């Protein structure tokens, strides 16, 4: 018997007796034997052998190299205490906190997560997370439709991460294309039947957008403005809530989550309190227990699928509690000054790299648009440049497919690495 199941043969005998059947097969008497059959899976491995395979597969990936790839997922420094807290079994192996009395720890973490997100966004209320940034975007799109009582139709530009746009399309939301000049969106001609206007900041190309213009355009047609913000950027950029945005959403991965080939990350969503009934997902609220002691509980459950079923505002059930914990611990450790320092270090280094590249004859695709830590640089053959970078022990930027590379620089990169990057691409 395997190490994860405790019964001995005599346990099994006793239990079968108690049930009143003679064999394990009898427990499946109601299942037609035609449906069963040996599982054709590789032979059982011991832990040691299995982990050796993991190591072997890990070697087939190129990692451990300076990273210049971003486009929605960023290679940031993660304090060791984050993973230490995540590995606490009491957090790791709990279910969704339905039984509040024995889930106060997880519930308070969610309350703190919601508080931090609300503070960063300068909006009144936040939920406990959704699956990822893309799903936060699509949930926001659907929310705008419910709130405006219009068909789901949103105005976006190429500045919105194309993967987010694809998810919006999968969910049957119509998209209206806004033009962009010099890498930022033109909000002057938003059609009057959209439910929402989206603005990503920094946008997909790394450029800073005008959230105020987006919200004015949205409100001008009685639609809602959704700002898609990198949470780290909110330590130094004006908060969407202060610029008229009705909903702020985004990818929380930069807050202490490893790249992990695309997940688990976490989507965050914040909005005004008057819109809370249309906010999907779990929300933790404060209350008291029988003795009047402060405590936390999942609240406004009437929005959710288990209560409202076919009329729920979303089907989401499981979210990303553990990665939301990572974001909470990370943000606590960093504090407002630390987050700002992460942002400033990244921006300083990105600007250093951009200047060095320009000095070596490269042109920025959007030279007149301010950016923070990500920018598009024109390159004749991005693929060749990336191969040369890999040969030199670096992971290059994203090939935008039209003669430009999207380069992301985080606080991890050193001047030496930035200089090496320039040298390699200049000679590629």
């Amino acid at each position, binding site marked *: *018997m395997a190490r994860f199941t405790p019964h001995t043969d005599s*346990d*099994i005998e006793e*239990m079968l007796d*108690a049930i009143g059947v003679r064999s394990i097969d009898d427990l499946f008497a*109601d299942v037609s034997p035609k449906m*069963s*059959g040996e*599982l054709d899976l590789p032979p059982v491995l*011991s832990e040691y052998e299995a*982990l050796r*395979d993991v*190591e072997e597969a*890990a*070697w087939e*990936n*190129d*990692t451990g190299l300076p*990273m210049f790839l971003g486009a929605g997922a960023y290679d940031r420094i993660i*304090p060791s*205490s984050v993973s230490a807290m995540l590995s606490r079994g009491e957090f*790791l192996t709990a*279910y*969704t*906190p339905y039984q509040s009395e*024995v*889930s*106060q*720890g997880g519930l*308070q973490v969610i*309350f703190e997560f919601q*508080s931090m997100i609300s503070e*960063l966004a300068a909006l009144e209320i*936040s939920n406990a997370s959704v*699956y*990822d940034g893309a799903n936060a975007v699509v949930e926001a799109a659907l929310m705008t439709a419910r709130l405006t009582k219009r068909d789901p139709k949103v105005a976006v530009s190429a500045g919105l991460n194309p993967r987010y746009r694809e*998810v919006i399309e999968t969910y*049957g939301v119509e998209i209206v294309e806004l033009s962009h000049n010099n890498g930022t969106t033109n909000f002057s001609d938003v059609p009057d039947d959209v439910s929402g206007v989206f603005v990503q900041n920094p946008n997909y190309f790394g450029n800073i957008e005008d959230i105020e213009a987006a919200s004015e355009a949205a409100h001008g047609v009685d639609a809602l403005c959704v700002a898609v913000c990198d949470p780290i950027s909110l330590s130094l*950029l004006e*908060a969407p809530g202060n610029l008229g945005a009705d909903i702020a959403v985004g990818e929380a991965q930069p807050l202490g989550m490893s*790249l992990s*080939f695309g*997940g688990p*990350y976490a989507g965050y969503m914040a909005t005004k309190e008057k819109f809370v009934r249309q906010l999907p997902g779990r929300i933790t609220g*404060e209350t008291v227990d029988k003795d009047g002691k*402060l405590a936390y509980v999942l*609240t*406004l459950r009437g929005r959710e*699928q*288990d209560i409202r079923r*076919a009329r*729920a505002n979303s089907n*989401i059930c*499981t979210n990303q509690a553990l990665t939301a914990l990572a974001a909470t611990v990370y943000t*606590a*450790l960093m*504090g407002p000054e630390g987050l700002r320092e992460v942002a400033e270090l990244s*921006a300083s280094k990105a600007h*250093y790299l951009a200047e060095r590249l320009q000095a070596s004859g490269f042109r920025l695709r959007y030279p007149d648009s301010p950016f923070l830590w990500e920018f598009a640089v024109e390159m004749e053959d991005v693929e060749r440049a990336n191969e040369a970078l890999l040969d030199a022990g670096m992971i290059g930027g994203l090939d935008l497919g039209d003669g430009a590379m999207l380069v992301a620089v985080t*606080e991890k990169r050193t001047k030496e690495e930035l200089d090496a990057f320039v040298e390699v691409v200049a000679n590629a």
Partner: protein
Amino acid sequence: MLSEKTLGSLIRDKGRPGRRGFTLPKNDVENLDLEKILPKKALREEKPELAEVDEPTAVRHYTNLSRKNWGIDTNFYPLGSCTMKHNPRANEAAAATPGFASLHPLQPEKQSQGALRVMHELQGFLSEVSGLSAVSLQPLAGAQGELTSILMVRKYFEDAGDTGRTTVIVPETAHGTNPATATMAGFKSKEIGVDEHGGVDVEELREAVDETTAALMITNPNTCGVYERNITEIAEILHDAGAFLYMDGANMNANMGRMRPAKAGVDIMHYNLHKTFSTPHGGGGPGCGAIASTEKLAPFRPDPTVEKSGDEFRFVRPEKSIGRVAGFHGNFGPILRAWNYIKMHGPELRDVTDMAVLNANYVRAKLGGAYRVPYNELCKHEVVIQPPEGKRALDIAKGLIDHGYHPPTIYFPLVVKEAMLIEPTESESKETLDDFIGAMLELAETSDEDLEASPTTAPTRRLDETRAARQLKARW
């Protein structure tokens, strides 16, 4: 014991302006003056009110919060429908391997062959367990696996020019995500009743199915823990009407090696890797709601799936894909853990199912009598019971806490009054089950007064849930 003083105290309140919990490397390039590149109105005026704490304070704070939380590691956690089995720590070691943890999702395929191989192999394993050949690992939780499946069905009919398929049928025992999914995918959800076994009422289904039916969402074993013995006939009814049979696979822990959904006529299903394949639930996620389908629906899977050509693994967009449902390739952490879990079990996955079913039936046999068992027949991995007449499920649940057990799922499925859905899982020993059964029998005899007072030993007593909703305070 925890000090009363720490209860309810937020991380923000433990900080002081100027404290820091982490230091960053010094800047080795020139400091950028943001005011030079950005208009003043773009810059944040008021700093966010976050915590300002040192590392020792933060670590103690979150460690103490964890001590106010129960998990499988600390307590027996028989939460029905949730499969709270032991989470092998080898899976955590796997996920922490730097060669995976630091892999960027947009690195070219040839730089991520190891990750692609893991995905490809897991697709194969899930295909083997279900008998359904086409897999996508992209959905990020069970509910999204449901939605992905129903969107694929929708796209199939669109592609076939069959525009009249407007309805998805959902049994009243279904999990709330099923009807919510049907609505979200743009269908009307039509509810049907269940028979005396808690199974889909075949006659009612026959009545309900017509040319507007796109699919039935069935759960097998159903949410009462009972095997859907008419599944083959149910599949035929749907197929004869040109509709699909979708299976909610949240309960696959009862099926591995014993029931292959494909052989029962299932066209498409979702798995919960965070249940059946033991990727930790994390207090509410992350999950992975991988789906598996027949070849007929394969072209509609989310973009991308992983294929092997020659010795290389690559991402491929299925021909008529519904598009993406996630920002990247899915929750790779859970994917890697599930792959490792399956490799540590191999064909012995069937023993997992066998022991899970044995444990549930043992609990059923021992609690029957003191508790009412509405479907008192063979159950699969979980059993639904009702408290003795006059007692409430909520009170028994809270009473269990004082005995050191996490309560089962209560008030679900909705068709059983005062339902208590108990799923012991295969991880638990006979001694644990006997002790739990003892506690349950004692609770059946405990006075209402004492039950209503419980819990008294948990970090809090019962909460005022109405106040939380009426006087909403969801942040500091």
